[in-house]
């Protein structure tokens, strides 16, 4: 039997099979596939943000960096911010990436912060209490983004950030063949769309900004009373008609964010999960503070339907947590803009429950400029 196993595994066919697999992996590791990634996919998005920041670092020479996840990515207009603040000598660039958990933000800081030696301040847009901020299992977007930023260091980050990882997670971060598998599948299934996009992109004009949210849809037309009302009316069995400022895809997105939001932790006091979050944050902030950069924390706005979750007790926990993360190396510089878009009904500014639309972005950017008070 052992001889049979030896004969089986030492046959020439395996050399062919492994050569093909290793060859493909090498091509992918060298980045040859990156230009072909699906538009707006997590991998394409993080590459776009980081490469744009690096590409414009000489010309823009930023002294303020924005860090964060979806609201920072969708809800802040860099053109408005830079135009308004230019006369005060403030130049802002963003490293915020949609759906990036702290571990991804850590990987980004680790790799790119040194590229911006003149940065004096980091504006960190926080999403307090949201269910994704303190996860302990790894999701596909996180794995894909970690794989893009630093495939070989990420296994250490996963360990440091106290994730419960599986062997497949670690392989998925390190091996591009696995990390890109869904993108490949999409390429095969939607070849014509992908080719069309590639040819269109090559003709696009280049701008200094990675993204400027131009979505016009809002949740206002749905007149949602609360999360349960959203689930009932916008779910698969709901009969709600689509208002003029929405469409079927948007309706589905709103429903999905309601579904996510219903899982927001209800506890007002600190929990194992929130403690873990602040331990993670401390690691991030150490990188920043070691470089003498100041951190400003902004509590981001989202739909008024979610206000019920963040009472004064929870905010106190967050304040304490942020102080812990800063480790006494800097005084807490916290600006609460949760209700900056209105405290009763801000539906007109929200694309869905946790993303702002173009209108929301403009208002939030203005409020942020005022609050930063340069």
């Amino acid at each position, binding site marked *: *039997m*052992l001889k*049979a*196993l030896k*004969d*089986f595994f030492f*046959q020439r*066919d395996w050399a*062919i*099979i492994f050569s*093909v*697999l290793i060859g493909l992996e090498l091509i992918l590791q060298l980045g040859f596939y990156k230009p072909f990634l699906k538009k707006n996919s997590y991998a394409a998005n993080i590459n776009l943000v980081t490469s744009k920041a690096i590409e414009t670092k000489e010309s823009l020479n930023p002294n303020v960096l924005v860090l964060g996840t979806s609201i920072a990515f969708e809800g802040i207009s860099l053109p408005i911010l830079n135009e308004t603040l230019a006369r005060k000598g403030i130049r802002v660039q963003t490293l915020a990436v949609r759906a990036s958990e702290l571990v991804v933000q850590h990987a980004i800081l680790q790799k790119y912060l040194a590229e911006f030696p003149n940065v004096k301040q980091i504006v960190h847009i926080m999403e307090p209490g949201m269910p994704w901020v303190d996860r302990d299992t790894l999701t596909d977007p996180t794995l894909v983004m970690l794989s893009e930023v630093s495939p070989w260091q990420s296994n250490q980050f996963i360990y440091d950030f106290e994730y419960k990882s*599986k*062997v*497949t997670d670690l392989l998925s971060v390190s091996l591009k*063949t*696995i990390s890109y*598998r869904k993108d*490949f*599948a999409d390429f*095969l299934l939607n070849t014509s769309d992908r080719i069309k996009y590639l040819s269109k992109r090559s003709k696009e004009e280049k701008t200094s900004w990675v993204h400027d949210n131009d979505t016009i849809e809002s949740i206002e037309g749905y007149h949602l009373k609360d999360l349960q009302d959203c689930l009932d009316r916008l779910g*698969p069995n709901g009969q709600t008609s689509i208002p003029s400022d929405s469409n079927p895809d948007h309706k589905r997105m709103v429903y999905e964010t309601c579904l996510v939001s219903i899982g927001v932790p209800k506890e007002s006091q600190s929990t194992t999960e929130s403690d873990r979050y602040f331990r993670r944050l401390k690691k991030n902030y150490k990188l920043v503070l070691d470089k003498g950069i100041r951190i400003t924390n902004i509590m981001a706005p989202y739909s008024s339907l979610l206000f019920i979750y963040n009472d004064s007790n929870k905010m106190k926990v967050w304040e304490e947590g942020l102080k812990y993360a800063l480790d006494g190396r800097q005084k807490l510089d916290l600006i609460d803009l949760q209700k900056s878009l209105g405290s009763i009904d801000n539906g007109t500014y929200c694309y869905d429950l946790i993303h702002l639309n173009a209108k929301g972005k403009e208002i939030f950017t203005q409020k942020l400029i005022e609050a930063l008070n340069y």
Partner: protein
Amino acid sequence: MLFNSSQFLIFFLFTLIIGNLLQNKWQRLFFLIASYYFYMGWEPSDIKCGTGVISDLYCNYGINPYLGILLFSTFVDYWAGIGIEKADLKNKRQLKWLCLLSSLLVNIGTLGFFKYTNFILGVINDLGILEITEFPKIVLPVGISFYTFQSMSYTIDIYFGKMSPRKSILDFALYVAFFPQLVAGPIVRAGVFFRDLDNRLKVDADSLRWGFCMILIGFTRKIVFADNLARVVDYTFANHALLNPIEIWTGALAFGWQIYFDFAGYTDIAIGVARIFGFQFDPNFNFPMSCRNIADHWTKWHISFSTWIRDYIYIPLGGSRVGPFRYCLNLFATWLFAGLWHGAAYHYVSWGLWQGFMLLCHKLYSSTSLPQFFEKKSQRFYLIWARIFTMFCLAFGFVMFRAENMTKALEMMKSLVFINEVTLYRYENYRFGILLIICYITSYYFSKRPIGKMISDKDWRFPLFVLVNTFMILLFGVTENQSFLYFQF
């Protein structure tokens, strides 16, 4: 323990290497212990800790209490086999019959208790004999339908003098519990198993290659095809009221393909694993979804089960060599049993009777001159039409099989035949319709080209086969750990 889990990979490699370092009875003992360990890896989902001895055994010591049922069935059937032979030698016919009866009662009784108690109580309730408000919560032990049938066929074969009982309880216990076939078949006949156990097939590089390819294609069928089709199936059966007949037909056809890929995938892996251990199980599926008629389908679908009910129910009842009325009775009794075997519910019974009805119709149709007439007119067109018609008839039955209850099945069947109010201009799951056409064409193509022959024909075919399957799993595989459908039976 699921074949598609990382625990199984470790278990498999460990068992393969250690098992092959041992010989004779030590090897058999090791395989037996490994098989019981494999069985214990199944976690009864409904067990609540602190509710009794059974749950305490499981929660505190990790001992799966349902292993006891497997051991009990094994001991009874082993001694029943020995008893039948001894009674036969002493010409004691009553004792011989009693031994067989004890085996049948234990197996059918165990199966009946776990699988049919609630069904029988439900029927009593429905008939208004008793008013039962609360049904007992009974967890169906995984694989019970398979190993009890395997065990029963052993004692029945001994009773009818088709084989001698096994003297070694170790060998018999291994036959019942051998892990590749334990939880979802194939239902291996004792003769086949002991033939290979006594004269273990040579395991060389070629057989490893064949076994590996079977395992790989099994994973492709399960992870790529079955689990992707599960999406449209789950959606269709959950939202049938919102769908039109074309969409429901797509979901019903998809379920046929899903269950085929799921179950055939499992048995491919089981057969591949067994081959690596030196056992050659007979194929359990032979491309049954592209058959020209229902009789043909049942010679190619779940072969170990269909031959079991043929040999142990249909033929002992008289088979087809009886009058027309008795023939119908035999046919429907056999398929009623087949339906009940799959599950204790009206919709499974209806599915079984639908199979019987289709077979009867086919028999009647075949006895006319119509098939020859159509074949003479246009053989190619007739064969294509016959295959498509068969597949749609099967899909109609699959609605009964998959629906959670008969009310839902009837609702969906009404939609399928356009009885309900319909809107036909929409076809939202058309992508799956395309996938089904691809499945059909590839299935037809590969039914003419056995895998074993394909990979041994030319040098480049094995690497190509491995790479194609690897990329299919990588690109289209559903990685969330999904259980095999036939575990529930």
